């Protein structure tokens, strides 16, 4: 088993980064939303799916992949704003399970709604010509598009980091996820912040969907399959911790990728085993803070 060609191993590591990248984009959104609003957003996968579908339509309209890459997440994020404002906001101050249930119902409705609007067959989205080839790394070919996904994920994370570290709004968000009560006591309007955070989180899920579409295809069930993995990543990283989401996302991506290669039968279960082990050893995830999720 260990006479594995280096090329295959490197390919799998890169694939792990791609997988991890998608998971990170999703997990960051989930973690942001949970950390700040204590909302477990079960519809996160549905918004990811919506991102892919919206990208399909925008691509048809604009014929420009680059425009779609920018616009689709914005469209999805705006929908997220609407959902927060009209639906989730009504649940604040109530049992913490209510948003989970609401978003669960929302995810059911969205999956079906998408099929009504776009049809039942999975759709195809193609990456632009410039990204469609494979780059010759000497010992093997690796698709350019996947490298592109890694690059975009990195760029999005940098943008998010800049936003959180360098802007006032970002400061409030960071403070709010540490101590929401204190922030309110300081007189800041959390409602607007929460609206923004939800929108950003959803927008990132939409971005993940746009990126995944050309690789995985666009079909209504794609969100259902990924949502559990995202929850696992967030929990392993620590609910509410952005660093945790990044580390755990990349870690999980690599673990799944390598397991798929060395022991394919275990690939589906490995995320749960890792999560169980992590949680039993570190109660609040890798970077989580005790007391945050109880």
């Amino acid at each position: 088993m260990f006479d594995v060609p280096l090329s295959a191993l490197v390919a799998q590591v890169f694939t792990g980064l791609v997988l991890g990248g998608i998971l990170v984009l999703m997990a960051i959104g989930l973690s942001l939303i949970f950390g700040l609003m204590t909302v477990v957003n079960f519809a996160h996968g549905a918004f990811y799916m919506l991102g892919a579908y919206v990208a399909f339509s925008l691509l048809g309209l604009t014929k420009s992949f680059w425009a779609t890459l920018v616009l689709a997440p914005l469209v999805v994020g705006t929908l997220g704003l609407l959902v927060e404002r009209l639906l989730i906001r009504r649940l604040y101050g109530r049992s913490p399970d209510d948003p989970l249930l609401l978003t669960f119902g929302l995810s059911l409705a969205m999956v079906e709604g998408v099929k009504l609007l776009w049809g039942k067959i999975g759709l195809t989205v193609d990456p632009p010509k410039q990204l469609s080839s494979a780059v010759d790394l000497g010992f093997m070919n690796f698709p350019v598009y996947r490298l592109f996904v890694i690059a975009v994920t990195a760029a999005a994370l940098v943008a998010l980091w800049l936003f959180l570290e360098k802007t006032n709004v970002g400061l409030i968000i960071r403070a709010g996820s540490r101590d929401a009560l204190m922030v309110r006591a300081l007189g800041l309007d959390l409602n607007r912040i929460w609206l923004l955070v939800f929108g950003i989180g959803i927008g990132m899920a939409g971005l993940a969907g746009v990126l995944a579409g050309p690789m995985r295809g666009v079909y209504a069930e794609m969100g259902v399959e990924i949502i559990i993995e995202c929850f696992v990543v967030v929990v392993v990283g620590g609910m509410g911790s952005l660093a945790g989401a990044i580390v755990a996302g990349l870690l999980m991506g690599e673990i799944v990728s390598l397991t798929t290669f060395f022991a394919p039968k275990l690939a589906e279960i490995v995320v749960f085993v890792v999560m169980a082990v992590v949680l039993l050893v570190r109660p609040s995830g890798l970077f989580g803070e005790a007391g945050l999720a109880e």
Partner: protein
Amino acid sequence: MHRRGFLTTTTAGVTLLAFPAVLRAQSKEPIRIGFPLPLTGTFAAIAADLQKGAQLAVEEINAKGGVMGRKLEVLFRDDELKPAVGAQRTKELIENQKVDFVVGGLAAHVQMAINEQTKAAKKLYISVSQSDEISAKPDTSPLTFHEALNPTITSRAMATYGMQNIGKKWWVVYADYAWGKQNNVVFNAAIAKLGGTVLGSTPYPLGKPEFSAHLPKIQAAKPDAIYAVTPGADNVPFLKQAISFGLKKDAKIAQPLHFLYYTKEGGAEVFQDIYGATHFCHELAETLPQAKRYVEAFTKRFNQPPDAYSGYGFNGIHEVARGVELAKSTDSDAVANALRKNREYDHYKGKQWWRACDNKSFQDLWIIRVRSPQQVKGEWGLFDVIGKVAANEELDRTCAEKGHA
């Protein structure tokens, strides 16, 4: 876009033909057939096709006066691609709707659950799902009929054609679940028996189509062809990855089945030159008179050509009707025996027959290859029919192998 009768189908335009008085004296209650199928879920498009085929059959039969003077009524139910739901819907059809027969099931695991309910209620069940077990002990029963192809037949046919026309050295990529594993095992055995070599078999978790690490290894082994058992939503990603890795230039690719709507959606550019097997495609209308009639009737009724699974639905209903006519009764045992006694039938594409020991349908299948974008004829002419594998009981396991004495 036509309006689809969701629940039951009865025709408009009933014609009163002159029936013998003895038939008129019989009950005028319609003969009810329950039809569970996955109208929601990942295979909804195939299910819609299946449903249309069944609807066409019912309308045609009823237009001719029905069966024994009674109309046919088909009750479709959504099994959501879940066995527990399929079982529950079947119970509802049998207990509440008092159906006389059941046709349906698209996914292997769902049809097993449906079969358990029909066996318990002693109702005839014609399964239209790909499965090796349904016609073998202990799942099968004298009332369990299997219309569809199964992995054994499909992969043996593809192996035979492949060895003769595509290549001698193969690599198999397969989804790690029952259907994928069965195809892999059968294909490996068939290739070995024919003197070829399977250089390697790569399983992958169903629903996780990531092949980047495997493809270089496959490329390095230099197979003549790859057998891709990558169903549903994994199909297009696999092909795209194979293309982007340059694998498609080095090796031919074959898969067990082709579906018209998925191929059209994925596009001829992705699918071109991919081999596949099918028990029916609408291009057969060019060479077979029965197929021509079927395709024309279907296209006229639904404004689109039929795909493979519509034929299963069509046959399922027609065989129930034929059995009832032969047995002169709606009793499931009588109908089953009548079908076994009069095994041959030909409703839309050529002669088929039921094998007596396991109620398995044997039918012609064809090897098709997807045309390049320039060669595609019109909107739907995506398949090139390049070979035929005539119906042959050798393609399936023997009665003894399936546990029948």
